[in-house]
């Protein structure tokens, strides 16, 4: 067989629109999951045993079950007991929860990688812990987590393709539809893959630039 991209050219705007759905689903769940992740990290790092236990349990359960199954639980599982979310909300909730567990771990690793001596220097200067955290630990900590967060963002973006199992209308499900319309399977999916790849690459480059600009020390 010969490859022919001419047939699918008219569908490019549809694909780009679907790509945008993938991107904004990722953006929202990354932001919401990030905020949730901060609280889970704080709970885990706190002095309270029960908080530690709950946050640890949450992190372990989320990280050791497939995102696909989590999505099924939210969409079909909750649906079966009368709690109905549409595909968009289901995906947003699933990806947010999933992301929060991973980012909580990223925050923990990044903050604990800040040299202990810096905290001690802050303490020795007479700064209470909240000041030491804010002025001494936070920035080096953010610098530590940025590469891992970028990675997590890209993984999350690629994971948004699971929206296709409940017909979210993001890029992958749109590719499936176009495939059944045009039967140009190889062309459709290779263009789709290229769109995923280019977006991920752009995110990675943007992150590197941010790193350069924001952390000049």
């Amino acid at each position, binding site marked *: 067989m010969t490859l022919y991209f001419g047939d699918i050219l008219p569908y490019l705007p549809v694909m780009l629109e679907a790509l945008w759905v993938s991107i904004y689903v990722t953006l929202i769940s990354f932001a919401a999951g990030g905020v949730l992740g901060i609280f889970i990290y704080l709970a885990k790092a706190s002095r309270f045993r029960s908080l530690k236990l709950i946050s640890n349990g949450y992190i372990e359960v989320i990280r050791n079950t497939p995102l696909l199954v989590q999505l099924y639980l939210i969409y079909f599982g909750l649906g079966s007991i009368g709690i109905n979310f549409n595909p968009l909300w289901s995906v947003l909730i699933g990806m947010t929860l999933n992301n929060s567990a991973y980012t909580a771990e990223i925050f923990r690793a990044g903050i604990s990688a800040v040299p202990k001596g*810096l905290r001690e220097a802050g*303490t020795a200067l*007479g700064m209470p812990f909240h000041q030491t955290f804010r002025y001494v630990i936070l920035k*080096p900590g953010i*610098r530590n987590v940025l590469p891992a967060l970028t990675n997590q963002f890209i993984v999350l973006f690629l994971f948004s393709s699971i929206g296709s199992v409940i017909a979210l209308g993001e890029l992958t499900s749109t590719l499936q539809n176009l495939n059944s319309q045009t039967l140009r399977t190889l062309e459709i999916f290779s263009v789709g893959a290229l769109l995923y790849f280019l977006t991920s690459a752009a995110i990675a480059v943007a992150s590197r630039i941010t790193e350069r600009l924001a952390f000049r020390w």
Partner: protein
Amino acid sequence: MIITVEGLHKSFGKLEVLKGIDCEVSVGEVLCVIGPSGSGKSTFLRCLNFLESFTEGQVTIGGHNLTGPKTNLNAVRRDVGMVFQGFNVFPHMKVIDNIMLAPMKVGKVSRTEARTRGMALLEKVGLTNKADVYPSTLSGGQMQRVAIARALAMEPTVMLFDEPTSALDPETVGDVLDVMKTLAEEGMTMVVVTHEMGFAREVADRVLFMDAGVIVEEGTPAQIFESPQHVRTQTFLSKLL
């Protein structure tokens, strides 16, 4: 007495690191602490500003009992400067900001005032031209002098030094020791853990030899270095020569 230590015991789990330390430091005195690796020198020093909690005993600094019920540890620490072996300068702040941070945040000093003071301190440690660079561009000796200036910015009454020159290239050790000498001459109360016997001999008012968590011997530099009484002191010093 500006520092009083009575019956200080400290354990890490089952390991007893300090086994009853008694010691006093008077205002303006320079006390050097020497002893073999692992003898508990750093731990002792870190107990003095409660970076390390202790198991038993009393530490009083400037009239404040560190473990007293009403003691505000952060307030006590503001009067006790500390300089670490590993510098611990804040990498994400320019040199001058390293020095201005604590005065502004805990000392409630205005930015302009903090900067003026910071520049004066940089002059004192010979780094005026480094005010607006990030620490990563400095040599070890320069970083340590920044760390000293940063501690001095809180106008402490006591300075603690934990092997301030041990991590330095030999050629930069002298600059740091010179700054410390000047401080001593100005009358700063200093407790210095050090392996620099030349410095201890020249600058210390009193030398304290620690081994295995106890103070084995103390005296003037002449007493300790010329005629050590204890076998463990003699063995330690003979190994250094």
